[in-house]
């Protein structure tokens, strides 16, 4: 119940940020959209599914993720129809499926997903800082470059967040616990 309330809170917060999202792509793509995904993760926190559903759910989440990564989707998300689609699909088709499939994903697959997330953020950061054209018609070139740098900072922060437990042991496992980290991967 508490998680559902938190999820709804994150959702309300994200919807309240609609003006900020229209003003800056950083607030749109790196604050509002992640909040919507977080809302979905929290809403699905206490749900469990059978293992058979893990891969289809992960693929659903990846599809939603790739869709909202497209620059034209970001432009579309500022129209009324696109905004409704964003507010519904990011929690329900990305946050919830990701949460449901995550416990069933092995450490190799998790590592693969994380490594890909980092490299993708790096590529996006390079693209948005160096593109000779405007990628989103709804945002200024300077804002596009800010978004590019924000992608790079995020990649660096996530790399630290994910690498430190691998290198120095996860706090929950004790350092270099013999059980490995499959139980407690974040």
């Amino acid at each position, binding site marked *: 119940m508490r998680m559902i309330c938190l999820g709804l809170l994150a959702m309300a917060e994200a919807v309240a940020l609609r003006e900020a999202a229209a003003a800056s792509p950083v607030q749109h793509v790196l604050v509002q959209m992640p909040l919507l995904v977080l809302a979905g993760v929290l809403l699905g926190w206490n749900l469990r599914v059978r293992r*058979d*559903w893990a*891969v*289809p*759910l992960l*693929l*659903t989440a*990846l*599809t939603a993720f*790739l*869709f909202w990564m*497209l*620059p*034209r*989707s970001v*432009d*579309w998300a500022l129209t009324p129809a696109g905004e409704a689609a964003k507010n519904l699909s990011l929690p329900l088709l990305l946050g919830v499926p990701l949460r449901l499939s995550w416990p069933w994903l092995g450490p190799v697959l998790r590592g693969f997903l994380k490594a890909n997330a980092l490299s993708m953020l790096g590529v996006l950061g390079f693209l948005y800082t160096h593109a000779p*054209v*405007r*990628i*989103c*018609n*709804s*945002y*200024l*070139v*300077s804002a596009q470059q800010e978004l590019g740098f924000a992608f790079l900072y995020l990649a660096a922060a996530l790399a630290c967040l994910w690498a430190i437990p691998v290198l120095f042991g996860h706090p929950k496992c004790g350092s270099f616990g013999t059980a490995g980290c499959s139980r407690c991967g974040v």
Partner: protein
Amino acid sequence: MLARALPSVLAAVAGGGILWQVTDGAQAFTSEAARRLDVVQSPRQVPEVLLEDMVGRQVPLLPQAGEVVLVEFIYTVCGDICQISAADFAEIRDRLRAQGARVRLLSVSFDPERDTPEQMAIYGDAHEADGVMWTVARPRQKDLPGLLKLFDVTVIPDEWGGFQHNAAIHVISGDGSFSAVYDTDAVEAVLAHLDGGQP
């Protein structure tokens, strides 16, 4: 085994199909690319709109008697891209004039409040738009939103009191349909398009 893999295969196929659809077959990842592809596939009828040119004369946006109209959206005090694109527009005009092509070039202001005929004349002078083959014109304020929507031009205020916009050369064919979009510096491609051969 097959039954266990089936939901995953379906999810992968559906996901791939959706992404294929929404990028127009992996061709358009940005809204600018999407609009360019869309107008070629389904040209849009341009309404009868009159614009006011540099000397206060009313000029039609629609092509007259089989000519082709090239449209650029601008604002006259634009500091960067409009200046460069105006130079390219002038080159297109010069080469078309040498060919004797029946083409009219219009730089249409999306800031009709500030871009008075006098202001447009200054811009015209600066870029040698003499009002014969190429003129600078502004729509009435009430026609502007419809035009921007039809041409899918997004104008947003920038930090310096100006605007940023998806600048391009818009082609209105002789039948009055908006049927192609080119980069402002794609001089050769525009000329090839008008020559009849689609580049």
